[in-house]
């Protein structure tokens, strides 16, 4: 077996192992860390596939961005050391069944299907080729999706702020939840009343 093949299988085992740990561990912070490892493994897989640029993006966006974001949100909402609730047994049974079935189905299809692999031709992804095509306005240029995605990012930024924004009228931060919301409205109502009276 060649070195490349060995490396591939090692990387694969790493990705899958950490992935399984990420979805099964009962401690949420550990789960996030296992996810981090898995994503790093995927970045390694990209290196192995000779797409260094994607690997870099993977590390920057996923490892540096999303996982950090997830860890932040864990800190905001959980006590990270606490064990999570056990999954519902019936559902984990059905989930496992579904996964096994899906896996078998897809494996059989992949094994049956003959891919016309084009190995003779070289595969080189240079960053300038990506950049040129990304901003190209000719055929096969990606300028339009690029701009659309930039709009999407802007929209999601604004959306996040709007969704997660605290209501400024909540004077008492402890009174949250549905009951709190009612009280909030009430408080709002009285405040407008007093405004009128004033």
């Amino acid at each position, binding site marked *: 077996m060649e070195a490349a093949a060995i490396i591939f299988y090692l990387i694969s085992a790493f990705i899958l192992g950490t992935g399984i740990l990420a979805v099964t561990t009962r401690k949420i912070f550990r789960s996030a860390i296992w996810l981090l490892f898995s994503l790093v493994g995927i970045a390694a897989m990209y290196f192995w596939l000779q797409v260094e640029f994607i690997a870099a993006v993977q590390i920057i966006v996923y490892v540096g961005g999303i996982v950090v974001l997830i860890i932040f949100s864990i800190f905001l909402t959980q006590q990270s050391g606490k064990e999570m609730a056990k999954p519902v047994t019936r*559902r984990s049974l*059905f*989930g496992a069944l*579904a996964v096994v*079935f*899906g896996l078998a*189905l897809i494996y059989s*299809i992949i094994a049956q299907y003959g891919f016309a692999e084009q190995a003779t031709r070289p595969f080189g992804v240079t960053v300038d080729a990506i950049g040129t095509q990304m901003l190209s306005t000719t055929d096969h240029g990606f300028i339009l999706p690029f701009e659309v995605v930039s709009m999407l990012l802007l929209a999601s930024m604004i959306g996040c702020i709007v969704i997660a924004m605290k209501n400024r009228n909540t004077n008492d931060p402890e009174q949250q939840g549905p009951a709190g919301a009612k009280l909030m409205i009430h408080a709002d109502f009285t405040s407008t009343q007093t405004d009128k009276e004033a």
Partner: protein
Amino acid sequence: MSNYSYIVWIPLLPLLTFLLLGLFGRRYVKNFSGILGSGSLLVSTVLSLLAARQYFLQDGQLNGVYQKIIAFKFTWLEFSPNVSIDISAIIDPISVMMLVVVTFVSLMVHVFSLGYMKGEERFATYYAYLGLFTFSMLGLVLSGNLFQIYMFWELVGVSSFLLIGYYYNKPSAVAASKKAFIVTRFADLGFLIGILVLAFYGQTLDITTLIERLTSTQSAEFAGITTAGFLGVSMLTWGLSLVFIGGAGKSAMFPLHIWLPDAMEGPTPVSALIHAATMVVAGVYLVARLFPIFSVDGVSLQLVTYVGAFSALLAAIIACTQTDIKRVLAYSTMSQIGYMMFALGVSKQGGESGLGYMASMFHLFTHAFFKSLLFLGAGAVIHLVHSNDMKDMGGLRKLMPVTHIAFLVGCLAISGVPPFAGFFSKEEILLAAFHSNKLIFGVALFTAALTSFYMFRLYFSIFWNKEAAHHPHDHGEGTFSMKFPLVILAICAVVAGFIPFAHFVTSDGVALETHMDLGFSAVPVALSILAILLASVMYRVANDKPEKVASTMGGLYKAASRKFYMDELYLFITKKIIFPLIGQPIAWIDKNIVDGLMNWLASVTARISELIKGLQSGKVQNYALYFFGGVAALAVLFIYIWK
């Protein structure tokens, strides 16, 4: 062939008035709307007279025969190359005659209403309805296509419904308009089926073509319609009889006459319009329009004859007992329409034997004048007395001299006293009946005498009898706009008979020489005068003779005054037979089977949803599982099973 394109404006002007007044009348035009409606109708009338002059005196004739001229025509709906619904204006002797009659009488009614309806809240709406009514009738008259006739026929029905129910906050008026609408609608069903039968076998809806095809014995269509039959009667007879049912409904022939007396609930000028010139003669006009076809089918013509004669007699008997003056006039209308019908029935197509056709049209023509005169006169009386009942009247001749004279002229005209208009037309009818059917002639003669009797009973009860109980009212006899039409119509009722009608309107367009047979005329005239004398003995001065006669007549009088229990019979049939035996079972089916099916479906759906609503658990992961299950099932289905 010259240009008659201006003829479209005759019906279009009233339509424009209707639209204008209907849309803006109550808010913007208001009291001016009467002038507007009358003005536009005046233009229509002038145009009709011009058309009549042009047609009858200048260019209607070709080699001594009056031609059928199509003023304009456009195809509206084409079902097949043969069958299409056209909108056309057809000009022939009867349509031109009807144009004149309809516009003229309608104009008189418009003018009369200026005074009669003054101060009504819905004055503009009233004129809008009048416009619609006149438009529909004119359109009907000009129609050259059976389906066009049907459309305008229904429009007439709708507008009469609107006019009869004009006092919509009066329950009896609402009931009457409903009754008129339902009864005529019911008859129109027959008309529609008749049209379809004729159009199916004749392969056309165009009247001229239809007449050509169904009257020539060689044509394939004629062979088709006469050989095909149903219940032992040929399809031609079926088709014509069904068409006649439609006509009988509109013309208030027995047994579909029950709506007519009730239709008196409308404003009196409306009654004049409906009874004299428009709605009720529509049936006669329809039969006359299709007369060439009727004339080849003896059976349906017999039907027309006997229904007409029976209606004439029945209505005359009932009229003798009624006390509501408008109802008397209503029954007299029915009786006169019966006259026109049986005159058509005894006629043949063409030549001397076509006398009945001519007489019928002539009577339609003269009747329009004296009947509208009588109704408008009655309207003037009601306007003064504020009552419809004879008992509230009497001795009015001094209070309303103009109305008195006009009414007297009308009565003389309808009684057939020479030289008034009714004499000429009625003589022709009697003559035609005499030549073809002695039984009918006898009925007609008796009816004529009865007519004189009840008309003078009415006249004496209103204007003589007791002393005037109603002492000078503030508004007197009525405004000039009310008297003027009476005078005009009275003049017409006198002179209309002298028009050489037989030269203009005959069944085949060839002028017919008529001659007054003094010996023949003597009997009916003498009978009429006798009847008038009898009426004068009984009603000129208040006395107890009428009650005595009534009590000796006993049951007959009672039955006649109750209109021979026709309304009760209808109620019995509908309430005791149709509703419980047909209506209720159908209602049961509708409620339990049709609705039941729907309810069952709904409850099954509800039960199934109750069963499966657990799927909608609100648990996102379950949804994800279902989703995955569905995708997997579809994948397996398409990849492995359904290749």
